[in-house]
């Protein structure tokens, strides 16, 4: 049996990768993907905690987190499409009309 530590480490590493991706990627779609990665990394944690505690709550939370992530992704994609129509670019460093 694999120790829970390894799952948690995997989760933390994936989460960090996702967060770093948000920080350094410039394509909005990729940023969105990185965020999905973060959320799914958390799901790994949740599932492993659930298994560790022998409790089902964590798994239920994963359901919710999955569907929420999906909904968020959909709205995000829709907005990115709208941006693309206006700007012909999804480079987030160029989307800075609103500032200061």
């Amino acid at each position, binding site marked *: 049996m694999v120790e829970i530590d390894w799952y948690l480490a995997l989760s933390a590493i994936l*989460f960090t990768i996702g*967060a770093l991706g948000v920080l350094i990627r410039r394509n*909005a779609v990729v940023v969105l993907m990185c*965020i999905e990665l973060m959320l799914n990394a958390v799901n790994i944690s*949740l599932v492993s905690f659930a298994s560790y505690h022998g409790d089902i709550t964590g798994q239920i*939370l994963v359901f*919710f987190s999955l569907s929420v992530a999906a909904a968020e992704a959909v709205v995000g994609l829709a907005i990115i499409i709208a941006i693309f129509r206006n*700007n012909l670019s999804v480079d987030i460093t160029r989307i800075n009309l609103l500032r200061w």
Partner: protein
Amino acid sequence: MDYLYDLNTFLPATIMAAAGLVAILMAAYKARIGNIFNFTIVALVMALAVSIRDLFGPDGTAFFDMIAYGGTAAFGAFLVTLGTLFCVVISRDYLEAIDHHYREVYAMILFGSTGMVGLAVSNDLIMLFLGVETMSICLYVLAGLIKGEKIGAESALKYVLLGAFSTGFLLYGIALIYGATGATSYAVVAGAAEATPLFLAGTALLLVGFFFKISAVPFHMWTPDVYQGTPTTLTAYFATASKAASFIALVLVLSRMIPEIEGVELTQLLQVIAILTMIVGNLIALVQDNVKRMLAYSSIAHAGYILVGLAAGTPEGYTGVLYYLFAYTIMNIGAFGVIAYYERNHALDFTDVHNYAGLGYKFPVMGVLLSVFLFSLIGIPPFVGFLGKYYVFAAAVNAGLVTLAVIGVLASAASVFYYLRVMVYLYFREPHKEYQLVRPGALFKYSLILLGILTLWYGIEPIFPTDSLIELISTYY
């Protein structure tokens, strides 16, 4: 019938959710927007009536401890419903005038408010997460409402990316808390938790999620951009209802989940965040020319004042927070409403303060109302904003956080400058162009006047039922 009993305790949100479904069907069948609007108003009034009933009802938990009812939670539901109702009322004329009056807006607002109520009454981390996300997703959509203009899509993109990013932290925080305690219900968590690093890290990440939603510094960066790019009346919705819901959920978390755990000391953290928020919010607001953006920074500053009450961490402080939220809701919707009125007469970018020159005389009611709301936002007696500030600062002083209260008072003294600047333009500058103002619609006008009266009414302390409101709130603790 346990379910029905539970449903009864969750009735305001249920009404809004059901109304949202009907509204989206009406939109699908291309009903007249006026009808959808009227239907929304009716539903919200019903929800408001129910939430007022709940204010005086018993308290407890329902849906397997997922939600709380009565007390603070009921006040949260009430505040969200009140704010939503006023925002919807002022939205119609404005959205029509700027040509963005989509049928789906009202359904989105109703769904969003469902999420807010869910957030405000949550008694479980799962419910909290669901509430936050239901609210946020609807707000992302609303933020991108201005089509064809780049700023609309940009504000929505910023909101959705950063919002989802912060959701990641929030969820991670929930996961760690769950890992540390094996539970998500506040009461169980409170019972099982110890101050382990895992739990502390979870709490920290959970708080980060909250700080993002209430736009505390340094998690505030999205706020000005999103507020500026969103249609003004919906900005009011963002700034009041959603913020009130987040704050009340935070109050519930802090008062029900954290306090019984030994070794978890949040005062220091909240104090630092409050100070940062007040200072940065007020400082940047000072140099803004765009009134909407100025109000966005000012709303950051107000979040700082509210955090002062939370940092106090006493029942008195929580009472102050709830009262401040109430005050903030009515005066801020009012201020955004008047700005929306000026904006609808011209163009979407009419929010530059220089354009306001001499407008105070053009349609005096609106000028006076804006002045009232701004005075209240400054916190000058006898307006309601003063009492709100008074309660949170007094609570901080009583809790021994004198420095914090002093910084708060100094920061709000600095805020006088940028609020008054708007009034200076309204009344003491010659208009450089002749503007023809449209007469405001009756419903729009009278709802703003009502807000103005409330702002005054609840600010005049000894005579009117402010005390009873405070009394009601303080019974929760």
